[in-house]
């Protein structure tokens, strides 16, 4: 087995991982990023919309400040976030956008003079100032008081990731692509690196480092319908759970987007509804106005997703070979509008569906979109439970998003957290030496090799990994989706517990040579089902509704009992449920809990604590 030594090992080469790697390399440390795919193919490349930072250059951003950004972020989180972290984030975001500017991101810039913009299908005028000419401009995104979303045409994530990877190349950061981490090397106290499997040859490689960082992105693919890339499968989260000592935070907080297209779950923008698109049911009738008479289709992301799901449960969904869906109708907006303002939607429909949205309806359904939960870290990005382990980006629960993240805040988080945590790793390594126990390395490697041999030979059983994965996804889709109830979640947890037993008996149907995709799937399935259980069991225990976590049987946000963060541990590998613990949502309050400003909601106040 090959062994590679570095100062810093980063699992993931998306924006968060590469930003941290650049920080480490800039300080003279040796850093390597692992990635399943070439760095530039990481999911960060898929974000089109943009990233938030209070630069206040555009006229519609006038009066914006890091205070306003902070307050939007805390409200958006439904007071579930760590306010110290949200403050750090909002204050650092403008600096990071400017740094990206120096590194080469072709941000769209302020163009002085009059121009038009749309809001709810209506046209308005604005005039940009001459003195701001050429500075980074911003567009509008949901949930913010000011326009503060920095963007690069329709390819923000792409351009920023390419720039970051260029920077890493310049600094000599190595990226080992087609390499998949499958286990952390640790002794219950300290993390020493990871065991990875080459997706070229199938061989195991040990990566040894004084600091290890998890930047492996979201885990949306434990759901069937997700807007996430196919590699966002939670493989590393499973490895983190497997340590037994590092908890995952707020796993029940999962965001759903109303309009993923069916069957491939690609996202179409909310702009469709913003400009006047409507949602139709199986009878091609509108329904959103029945539930939300005022805002109808224009209600917020999570509200629309809820009513869509409700309406399908009432039997009004459209059956298809890929499951039930609803229709998005933009035909009445006309060809000019659709091929102009909504060009991207037009292209997605024609290229991926073979549907012409000028004359045909678009099949859509609420689709898993973002994982607020992840590897629980402190504000320096250090994971709980293991020395030398860090995390940042969507894989982490650094916790500036709480129970709902705002559009444009996660891409900004990747570079802000990547920078901060990268810097903290540099500081950590300044006065840190560790002696590397080779026995731990060989023990971990041997265990992984045994696991591979058993799966290939079918020593534990012959369960088909793809069928087990389907069972897990079905259970989550049914019980831990947009709506959650005691009954649904109890059923979901039970089914997942059975599925976990099956996952432990997976054996290959094919030979397992080389990069074998079936073996890759088999190696992570047990961890995935455990993740699914963290989501479902966490949701079952959280008896309130907050942000994206929506309990029909507990519709109120309950600050009295649940102003907390869930920590899910997998203490013993043979357990069939996670161990849940709780901590305060935030160590201090800059803004006390209040109304989040959208969607009707009852609140049980924290002040009622003394009385009860």
């Amino acid at each position, binding site marked *: 087995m090959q062994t590679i030594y570095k100062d810093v090992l980063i699992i993931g080469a998306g924006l968060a991982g590469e930003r941290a790697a650049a920080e480490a390399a800039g300080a003279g440390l040796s850093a390597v990023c692992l990635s399943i*795919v*070439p760095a*530039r*193919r*990481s*999911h960060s*490349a*898929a974000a089109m919309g943009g990233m938030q930072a209070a630069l206040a250059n555009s006229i519609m951003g006038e009066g914006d400040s890091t205070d306003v950004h902070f307050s939007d972020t805390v409200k958006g989180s439904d007071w579930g976030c760590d306010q110290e972290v949200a403050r750090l984030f909002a204050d650092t975001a403008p600096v990071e956008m*400017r740094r990206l*500017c*120096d*590194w080469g991101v*072709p*941000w*769209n*810039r302020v*163009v002085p003079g009059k121009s038009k913009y749309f809001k709810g299908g209506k046209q308005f005028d604005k005039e940009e100032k001459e003195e701001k*000419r*050429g*500075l*980074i*401009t911003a567009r509008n995104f949901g949930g913010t008081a000011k326009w503060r979303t920095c963007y*690069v*045409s329709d*390819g923000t994530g*792409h*351009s920023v990731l*390419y720039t970051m990877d*260029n920077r890493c*190349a*310049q600094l000599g950061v190595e*990226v080992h*692509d*087609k390499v998949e981490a499958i286990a952390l090397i640790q002794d219950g106290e300290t993390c020493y690196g990871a065991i990875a499997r080459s997706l*070229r*040859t199938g061989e195991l490689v040990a990566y040894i480092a004084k600091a290890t960082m998890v930047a492996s992105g979201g885990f949306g693919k434990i759901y069937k319908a997700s807007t996430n*890339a*196919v*590699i966002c499968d939670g493989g590393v989260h499973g490895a983190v759970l497997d340590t037994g000592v590092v908890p995952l935070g707020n796993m029940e907080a999962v965001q759903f987007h109303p309009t993923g297209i069916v*069957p*491939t779950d*690609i996202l179409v923008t909310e702009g469709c509804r913003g400009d006047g698109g409507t949602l139709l049911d199986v009878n091609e009738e509108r329904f959103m106005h029945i539930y939300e008479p005022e805002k109808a289709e224009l209600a917020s992301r999570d509200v629309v997703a809820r009513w869509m799901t409700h309406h399908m449960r009432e039997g009004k969904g459209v059956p*298809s*070979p890929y499951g039930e869906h609803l229709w998005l109708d933009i035909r009445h907006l006309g060809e000019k509008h659709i091929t102009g303002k909504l060009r991207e939607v037009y292209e*997605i429909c024609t*290229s*991926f*569906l*073979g*549907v012409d949205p000028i004359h045909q309806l678009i*099949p859509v359904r609420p689709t898993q979109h973002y994982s607020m939960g992840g590897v629980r870290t402190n504000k320096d990005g250090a994971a709980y439970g293991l020395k030398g382990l860090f995390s940042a980006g969507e894989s982490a629960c650094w916790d500036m998003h709480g129970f709902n993240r705002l559009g444009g805040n996660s891409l900004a988080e990747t570079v802000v957290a990547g920078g901060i945590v990268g810097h903290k790793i540099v500081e950590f390594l300044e006065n840190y030496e560790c002696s590397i126990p080779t026995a731990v390395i060989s023990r971990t490697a041997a265990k992984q090799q045994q696991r591979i041999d058993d799966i290939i030979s079918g020593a534990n059983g012959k369960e088909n990994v*793809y069928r087990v994965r389907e069972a897990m996804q079905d259970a989550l889709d049914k019980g831990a989706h947009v709506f959650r109830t005691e009954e649904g979640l109890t059923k979901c947890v039970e089914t997942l517990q059975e599925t976990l037993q099956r996952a432990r008996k997976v054996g290959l149907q094919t*030979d*397992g*040579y*080389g*990069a*074998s*995709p*079936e073996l890759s799937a088999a190696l992570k399935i047990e961890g995935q089902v455990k993740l699914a259980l963290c989501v479902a069991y966490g949701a079952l225990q959280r008896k309130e509704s907050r942000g994206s976590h929506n309990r029909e049987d507990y519709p109120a946000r309950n600050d009295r009992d649940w102003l907390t963060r869930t920590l899910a541990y997998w203490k013993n590998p043979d357990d069939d449920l996670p161990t849940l613990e709780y901590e305060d949502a935030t160590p201090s309050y800059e803004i006390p809990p209040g109304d989040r400003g959208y969607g009707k909601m009852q609140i049980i106040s924290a002040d009622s604590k003394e009385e009860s």
Partner: protein
Amino acid sequence: MARQLKFNIFRFNPQNPESIPHMESYILEETDSMTLFIALNRIREEQDGSLQFDFCCRAGICGSCAMVINGRPGLACHTKTKDLPLEITLTPLPVFKLVGDLSVDTGTWFRSMYNKVESWIHTDKVFDANAIEDPMENDIAEDVYELDRCIECGCCVAACGTARLRDDFMGAAALNRLGRFVVDPRDKRTDKQYFDVIGSDEGIFGCMGLLACEDVCPKNLPLMNQLSYLRRKMGIVAIKQMFKK
């Protein structure tokens, strides 16, 4: 009645000593809005778990899924079966090293490409966290983005006659990449410095100008304009250098 599709897929696993390159056929019933992404995943999950191919975003953004589809390089996620005949032949991209079946190693190729063209901003400016950004005209920013849109899928390289003949040819993607820095005012390299990178048969002078690259580029990048622009510009540098000697 749904169509019965026949997929002829190239199979070879270099890690398996018994594997020999061959074509294998799979039958699949077509469903609504079926793309090659859906079809290939169904084949893998229902018929042969060892089939290797690469998808990531499955939305035409990341460039992972390029392969040769009925003789032409293209993105598999972006290809609907209803636009194809009943018989669909899939082979891996040429030029790149084969990993197995339809999967090739584009990562190594592109990384060496961008190290060769030094695909980063060359400047003496040191970032100042307290200063505001240098202004730039929006039109220029958009011009840079226009060339920054390449997704490194490798289709242009696979379609290029020169690239198939000589390993060291940089290909349209590299020339386009350099062009991105030529138009970026933040990059302080001179024409002479650019010439040293691409002013040879490995670069701009190796290109035969037949434009297979532009035909297959899924991002519709203006490769033709880019190539002729660089050729003119580099031609001028070459002439200047001849006179200097």
